[in-house]
């Protein structure tokens, strides 16, 4: 397995360029190829679960000289999410993307984005992380504007400007660290920072990283691109962006930098928690007032990432566990919600909740899945969102943050309110006259929705079976900076 580790980037990257050579007439073949590539990747990740952590030295260059790839439980968790959501979104897009032209380019960009995200989560080199981050985000700029309509291009443009600002700042941060310590290897950097103490240049770089990655992860006040970008993208891409991109490029990068490279400090703890609470509250308040289905969902992504950030910032074992669990659950239910909104748009041609109604009668599969996802995100038992929110709230109360716990609970309630609104106007009620003849989505799309809905239920109920092997060891990895340094440098710091 160790020898195959670079394939997580190599396969999607290779496929992305390879399929561009195919003519349009062979679209079906291309679909088979990308599906097989994704299935292989998924099988590889599943084989990686429970594997001992290891590092892979590219070209046998020993760190800190060469680029190191690191496999530990937190990267495995992210890889798993990327590939589950990736595979299912891909299957969904086979039918869905018939609304657009040049499907092959779409698949190419899609695979490029997967390659970028996989690279971000497996690399052990901070500049390399930046490169993969750019691969993932630049392909996502293109995908957001894929429809080439006025609105989509505008969203893509805004996303690109704000994204480039954040990328520049991240690069500046990397440059500062490199100038100070003369190394780019994250473990080596951590070692140097431990040895020299956290000085002002490190803190300055940390500020740049939190802002830069915070923008990719849509933390308020750096969130403004997301409510335009996520709704404009085709539904499977919205699912990828909200489901995994903001996590891999935002939350994951912050976890790595803050916990493993710089080390968690009290001031960082306060900053991350404030960002989290702010995102949670502002996101949900903006979501409640929306009538555009996808825009509403996009604001909820901000709010839900706030939950994750509160847990990460809390820095207690239970808090981090809750955050990682919520990160995983959010990948499932938010992807499902975006795919449902896509299915509704596919059948009815609208995203405006006011123009829908009574869809349960015509689209039972989509409506039931949407209902399940709504209950999951609102934190209603027995669905997954309930469990992870519960852990975060318990962690907050344990740390005696009663006020923040109350805010968290309140946000959960407002989430419920806004999804009651979604259900009231889309699923229930009377079918409008002009939607009398709509049909349920094709079987493949419906199957994807059902799989996600089942995941939403099982990832809550089956926690005893996977909690330990997937989440709790990922949490232990996050907390243990020493172990990470040891893993890469293979010396005792």
């Amino acid at each position: 397995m160790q020898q195959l580790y670079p394939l997580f980037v190599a396969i999607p990257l290779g496929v992305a360029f390879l399929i561009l050579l195919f003519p349009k007439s062979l679209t079906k073949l291309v679909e088979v190829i990308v599906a097989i590539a994704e299935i292989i990747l998924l099988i590889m990740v599943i084989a990686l679960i429970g594997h001992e952590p290891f590092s892979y030295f590219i070209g046998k260059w020993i760190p800190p000289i060469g680029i190191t790839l690191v496999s530990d439980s937190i990267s495995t968790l992210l890889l798993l999410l990327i590939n589950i959501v990736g595979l299912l979104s891909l299957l969904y897009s086979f039918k869905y993307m018939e609304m657009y032209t040049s499907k092959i380019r779409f698949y190419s960009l899609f695979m490029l984005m997967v390659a970028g995200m996989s690279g971000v989560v497996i690399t052990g080199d901070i500049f390399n992380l930046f490169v993969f981050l750019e691969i993932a985000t630049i392909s996502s700029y293109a995908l957001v504007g894929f429809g080439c309509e006025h609105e989509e291009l505008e969203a893509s443009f805004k996303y690109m400007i704000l994204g480039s600002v954040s990328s520049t700042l991240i690069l500046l941060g990397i440059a500062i660290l490199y100038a100070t310590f003369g190394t780019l290897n994250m473990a080596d950097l951590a070692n140097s920072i431990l040895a020299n103490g956290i000085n002002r240049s490190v803190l300055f770089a940390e500020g740049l990283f939190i802002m830069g990655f915070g923008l990719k992860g849509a933390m308020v006040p750096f969130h403004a691109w997301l409510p335009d970008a996520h709704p404009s993208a085709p539904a499977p891409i919205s699912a990828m962006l909200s489901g995994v991109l903001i996590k891999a490029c935002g939350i994951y990068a912050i976890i790595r930098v803050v916990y493993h490279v710089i080390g968690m400090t009290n001031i960082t703890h306060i900053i991350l928690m404030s960002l989290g609470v702010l995102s949670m509250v502002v996101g949900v308040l903006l979501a409640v007032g929306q009538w555009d289905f996808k825009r509403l969902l996009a604001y909820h992504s901000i709010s839900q990432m706030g939950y994750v950030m509160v847990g990460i910032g809390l820095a207690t074992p239970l808090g981090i566990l809750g955050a990682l669990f919520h990160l995983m659950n959010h990948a499932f239910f938010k992807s499902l919600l975006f795919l449902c909104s896509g299915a509704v748009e596919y059948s009815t041609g609208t995203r405006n909740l006011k123009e829908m109604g009574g869809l349960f009668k015509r689209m039972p599969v989509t409506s039931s899945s949407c209902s399940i996802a709504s209950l999951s995100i609102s934190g209603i038992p027995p669905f997954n969102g309930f469990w992870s929110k519960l852990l975060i709230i318990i962690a907050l109360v344990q740390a005696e943050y009663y006020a923040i716990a109350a805010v968290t609970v309140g946000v959960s309630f407002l989430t419920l309110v806004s999804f009651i609104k979604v259900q009231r106007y889309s699923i229930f009620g009377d079918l409008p006259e002009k939607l009398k003849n709509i049909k349920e989505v094709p079987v493949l799309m419906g199957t994807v929705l059902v799989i996600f809905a089942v995941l939403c239920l099982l990832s809550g109920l089956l926690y005893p079976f996977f909690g330990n092997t997937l989440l709790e060891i990922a949490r232990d990895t996050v907390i243990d900076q020493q172990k990470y340094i040891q893993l890469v440098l293979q010396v005792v710091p």
Partner: protein
Amino acid sequence: MNELLYPVFFTGLFGLVLFILPRRIPFLTNFLTIAGALLGFISALALIGKSGISAGWEWFTVDNLTFSLDFTLTRLGLMGLLFITFFGVIISVFSAGYYANREISRFYFPFILWTVTVSIGIVTADNLFLLLLCWEVTTVLLYYLINMGKGTANAAAGKSFVILGLSDVLLLLGIVIIWVQYGTLRISALTIPVESGLTTAVFIFFLVATLAKAGAIPVHSWIPAISESAPTPVMAFLPAALDKLLGIYFLGLINLSIFKVSHSLSMLMLIIGAVTIIVSVMMALIQHNLKKLLSFHAVSQVGYMVLGIGTGTMVGVIGGLFHMINHAIYKSCLFLGSAVVENRAGTTALDKLGGLARILPYTFISMVIASLAISGIPPLNGFFSKWLIYQSLVDINQPIFLVAAMFGSALTLASFVKVIHSVFFGSPAPGSEKMKKEGFSLGAPLVVLAALCIIFGVFASLPMKYLLIPAVEGSYPQSAVPVASDAIWDPTLATGLILAGLVIGMLIFLLGKFLTKRQAEVFVGGSEFSDRLKPVHGTDFYNTIIDMGGLKGAYRDGEKGTFDIYNLGGRIGNILVQSLRALHNGVLSTYLSWCIIGLGILLFILVR
């Protein structure tokens, strides 16, 4: 498997089968529903006398937190269990008949059974975590059941989910705080004195959860909202019966076992109870729709239960719990009666009904009995439990609340006179001659419930002795038990006297028949009664109240829902949302400046 889990198992399993099975053969669906509910009821009956048994296992452990599912059968829980499963049977039988000739979602029957399952979970839970799970699932199931109704059901269902959802998240927060502070969620192991600010907050969270479920002011407004559009059997099942049982069961639990309540919180409950009684009965008086009228009474009656339990005395708590059972019986009888009326007449608007007594005799008799019971007429069950509550209010020396309770009772009678008159007497509604009588599955549940109203009234000492006193005696010193027993009004003797009075009255009436009589034409104000004059309708009498000075404005606001917590919250929320939205003007430079300002603040904090 532990026999304690049989009721949960049977109802859950049959629910699952029904959930998977497509509803092609109505007979099979009905059979399976009734069979599941009956098995649940029988296995609950088999548990009588076995209180104290428990079952449970640890589900999973996260760090040092153990999520476990502990079931135990307390005497209070047994009482809840028996009535929950009993209502499950009643509603399954009734629904089979009610939906024989109308459309309903195929998920209706499994959701009804699952509601029974999770409700059993609540009353047999020995673990607040398990209780919370079941509590929230009842809310979700209620939401979907309401959505199966017609018309504006989606809006009403949304409103009820919002109000109940708010109370559910508060309950969750309270439970988490208890968990962290006391290290256990075992209900039998908790006795928390309400002293500090934190414990008071937790108690209030729990109180809001119970009041919202049961439907007391100010978290009541979902019940009137769903009354007209939700399927009527669902109204009879959940807001009228099960939600009351669950809410008041949990209210009893937090007062008797989980918390030691302080005096000021008792007063709070008494005030909530009294306000609930008066305000909602006033609203009920002016309603023109049978179901909406009943729903306001469903709120009003909760006031009595809260009053009883709020007193904290043994008599009061017994009265509150007994009233909960009695209310479930007569209110679900009334709602089922209105469902029969709706099924046959096609409407529940009081102005369009009339003269149905002949056509629907069983419904008529059952509804009259239930109406008398809810109005607290002796010797029916409602009088008995109200009497206990009055006594407890006298005991704790709170005459104001006593007056409020009795005044509410009088107004209840006034509004049910209107109901009975408008629906069953007066000139027959058009089309009523073609209506069919109620069949077995519609009639039998009504008659059973009405019979229970009489039995629990006349022979009230039986449920007192075997269900209620055992349920609460553990929480009180032994010396309180005989005091409570003394408080019992002896209904059997009184019934004999009342019957004797009726017989004498009948004799006088018969004697009068033999005397000479004069027959005259009907006349109004001296002039002869002609067809030009419209028949006088029951509801019109009550318009006087709306026009009464001082009440007019209050009624207008009440009808508009100005004080409704749902609307108030919505308005405040909207202001917040709109001001935030105004900030998002879509201009890139605004967004960029946020980023730069944010970065500036970050760097300032970090590098200072």
